[in-house]
Each structure stands twice: as C-alpha cells, then as structure tokens.
C-alpha cells in the first residue's frame, strides 16, 4: 500500500500546540521541515509558538493559513473533539499521536473518518499513534521518530 501521505501541497496544523508535548514536538518538526504552518489551542489564539501563529479553532487556521493536514497532541479525552473539529473544518489527513484514547472514542473516530473518506496511514484511516505516516517518502525526518534519533536498530522497527 502506498505509504506516502504528505507531499509539497501539505500544510499542517498542530492541534494542542501550546501544551507541553505539542510545544516540544513543534520545536523538532519546525527544525526538520517546512510543513507546519499553524497551531491551534482553544483560548490561546493570537499567541505564537516556534514562529507559528496560534489560532482558537482549526477553521481559522484553514482560513488564514490554508492548512489541509492536522497532527494532534491533545490529551486522551480531548482527541475525539479535536478530530471532529479537524474533519468539520475540511481536513482529510489527520495524525493522532496521543495514547490511551478511550475505546469508544477511537471507534467513533474511525467510523466517522471512514464515512468522510479521511486518510491515515496503512488502513487509510486516522488511527491513534500513527506517527509513521510522517516519516516516509521524501520528507523522511519530519517528526519525532526521525533521522535525528536513528540508531543502530534493525530495518523493520515498531514503536513501543
């Protein structure tokens, strides 16, 4: 299956950009490439993180920065809402990094994304912890588990 989901047209927003993890990862993602163009945290619109403008809603990020992709770093119970907001704003490629999302939320996300035709890696649907979507193709090294940390490990690795 084709595993390259990002290309020159990709303009990504970080949902949860002002949180601890979101902020730290944004630092590395901005260093590694030019895909990120905005961040979203409700109530923190107008701030800046790593030079990226922060908006209150994904809709605003779409309107002002033309984003078409989202990477989500919000806490587990907020993931369902974050995905719904991104889908409602027309985003069709979503990377969920958060762990421990409740089962029901996960199947609702999967179901809704399937109906809409949003994409993720492998299953072509967004799924929790699919950071691998980002480390393929020409843009290898875009996020966290990238070349910066590549060590002497076997070719096929899984993320633990």
């Amino acid at each position, binding site marked *: 299956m084709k595993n390259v989901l990002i290309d020159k047209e990709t303009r990504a927003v970080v949902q949860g950009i002002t949180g601890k993890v979101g902020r730290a*990862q944004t630092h590395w993602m901005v260093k590694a490439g030019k895909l990120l163009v905005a961040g979203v945290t409700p109530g923190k619109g107008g701030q800046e993180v790593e030079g990226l403008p922060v908006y209150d809603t994904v809709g605003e990020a779409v309107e002002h920065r033309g984003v078409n992709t989202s990477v989500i770093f919000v806490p587990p119970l907020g993931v369902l809402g974050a995905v719904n907001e991104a889908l409602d704003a027309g985003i069709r490629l979503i990377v969920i990094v958060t762990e421990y999302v409740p089962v029901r939320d996960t199947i609702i996300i999967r179901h809704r994304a399937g109906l809409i035709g949003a994409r993720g890696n492998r299953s072509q649907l967004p799924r929790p912890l699919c950071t691998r979507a980002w480390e393929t193709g020409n843009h290898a090294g875009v996020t966290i588990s990238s070349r910066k*940390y590549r060590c002497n*490990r076997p070719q096929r690795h899984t993320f633990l």
Partner: protein
Amino acid sequence: MIVPEDYAKKYLAQYGILTPRGTIAESRAEALAAARQLDFNVVVKAVIPTGGRGKAGGVRVCRTQPEVELFLETLWGKEILGYTVHKVLVEEVVDIETELYAAAHVDTVSGYTNILFSEEGGVDVESAADEIKIISVDPGADLPVHRVRMHTHTWGLSGVNPDALSFFLSMLHRISADIDATLLEVNPLAVLYDGSLAALDCKCEVDENALARHKDFKEMQRETLSERELKASEFGVSYVPLEGVIGVITSGAGLGMASMDMLTERGLPPANFLDTGGGISEDMLCRALKLILEPSEVKGCLINLYGGINRMKEAANGIAKALEETGDKRTIVAKILGNQQEEAWDILSAIPNVHVIKVFQTEQAVDKLEELLRQQ
C-alpha cells in the same frame, strides 16, 4: 476494569431495569442480618470480579437460616477462581419462568457495538452460540426502542414479550455507552411470571482509558490498588508488583514485556515492573526509580527507555537525582536510546553503580546485568 455486580446492578436500576432487592455484606454477621430481612429466602453470591462463579460453587439459593449459615461458613475466606471471598451479595429469590441471555459488547475489530441476545440463558450460554441473535449498532449512534423492535419482532420469540425485550435491549445499549462499558452482560435475564424482565446477574467491564470521565469508577479502582500501585498512579505511571529479584522500568509496556521475558529466561525474574508511558520528566523518573528500588528483594535494576517524544536527558537527570537522594548502591543497567541520548549517556556514565548500554539490542543490557550480578 471489572465493575462489581452490585454496583453494575445499581446502574441498571437507575435506567428502569428490574433487579432483585439485595444487600452487600462484608462480614458473616452482616450477611446473616441481610438474609433475615428477606425471611431467609435468599440467593447468596460471592462477590468476585469474574464470571463462571455459579459453576465454581460461589452462588447458592438458601431457603432456611441453617442453610444460609452453612453456606456462609463454607464460602467465607475460601478461594474461588483465584479470588478470596470476603464479600457476599444477599438477594431475594425471584421466581422465574425462563432464563435468557443479553449483552452489549464493543467489537473493536468491526467498530460496532453488538447487542447479543439468546433465549437460552443460564450457566452454559457459551455452548449455545448458534442461537445468539445480534444487532450491530454504529459507533456513537443511539439504539432507540423502535429500532430494536424491528429486529425482535422477526426473531420468532416464544418465551418473551418482544416489546419488553426491546425496551430492555435499548436500555442495555444506552447504559453501556453512558458508562464506557466494553462489555455489559446480563445472564441470566429472567422472565418473571407476569412477563416482565429482571436482571439477575450482571457482568460489567469498563474501559480503563475512560475512567477519567467516571469519577465513581476511578475511585473504585483506587480501592483495589496496593500501596505502591497507588503511589505510582499518583504520578501517572503503572506499577506491577511481581515475585522476582530485578526491578524493571521501561518506556512502553511492549518493551517491558520483551525485557521481562529475557530476564526470566536468564534466571533473573522481575521483582516489579514500571511502565512510564509518555510524558517522562525528571521528577517522574526520580520517583519511579525510588519506587522500583523500594522492595528489599530487588537485587538489581534494568532501565530500558526509548525516547521519541520523551526526552532522555530528563530521564537521566531523574535517575541521577533518585540515586543521589537515596544513596542506593544496587546495580543498575540503563539502556537508553532516542531523543537526547548522548546527553543522557554523559549524565549516567558519571554514576558508579549505573552501567549504560548504547545499542539497540536489549539482550546486551540483560547480558551486562547478569554479568555484574554474578560478580557480586
């Protein structure tokens, strides 16, 4: 997490489902008093978090006081299916016409919530799998009564009123959604002589990832934890007490399983296991290592971390801080890779009883730990 029967039944009652009158008793005297209130015509049930209890001798219908006393004596403190009985549920005896089976189950493969129903309820329902009817419900969708009726009226039911059943199944689905249950099973579901339905037993498993939405379950879960598990939950990690000699800390349960298998193969069984999950900080690792080294049985410790999101420099600082504060001299092998690995190696190399492993293979860390412990 399994929700105790009596608590699950309270939920059923709140949604208008009939359940037998009953009392939880935490001593034999309490159980006897509860039975007296019901004129010694009672069902006494061991409260243990597992199914198959009736067959294992944990449930009995008692019609007289001596019968209740005798059963309590044989039951109390006894081990059933791996659980010690120190709590019973004393319920009124309900006269029933037939026993049915019903459940709401989240199928994580298909993503649907399946409502299961069988006219063959009771202890051997598993063997009647062919007879089970299924209604699949979309994730997040409601299951209104009228939709259930479209199914139940085509099932050719003989022993139960389809409309009463439809209401029951609709409610079962709603409860399971409301409390984030991955399984909500009523077996037996009894048909009473007047045709109404009553839930005589209820097995309920809720999604632990959703406990933060349900304060009461969260509280209930805390009650079942040991002191060290409780401490670990306070700073957001999971701690598992085991019976060996090596303390194990890993960033991820998969890595933990692999590490523990290797240790056990070498004759170094784990004494405990702590999974940091995401969000490693200096403070977390400091508290984690202190906790892992708490039991005196721990002869050495294996720390196996991979930092993607987690910053390994913070982890190393936490390890250093814990050892400085406690002055612990036990052997520690730390395999640390990923985000900020070089900084972490520098910090840890400076500590005499910590040995750093810089390669991918966990085997080499286990080799080193074995070698160092043999030398002692």
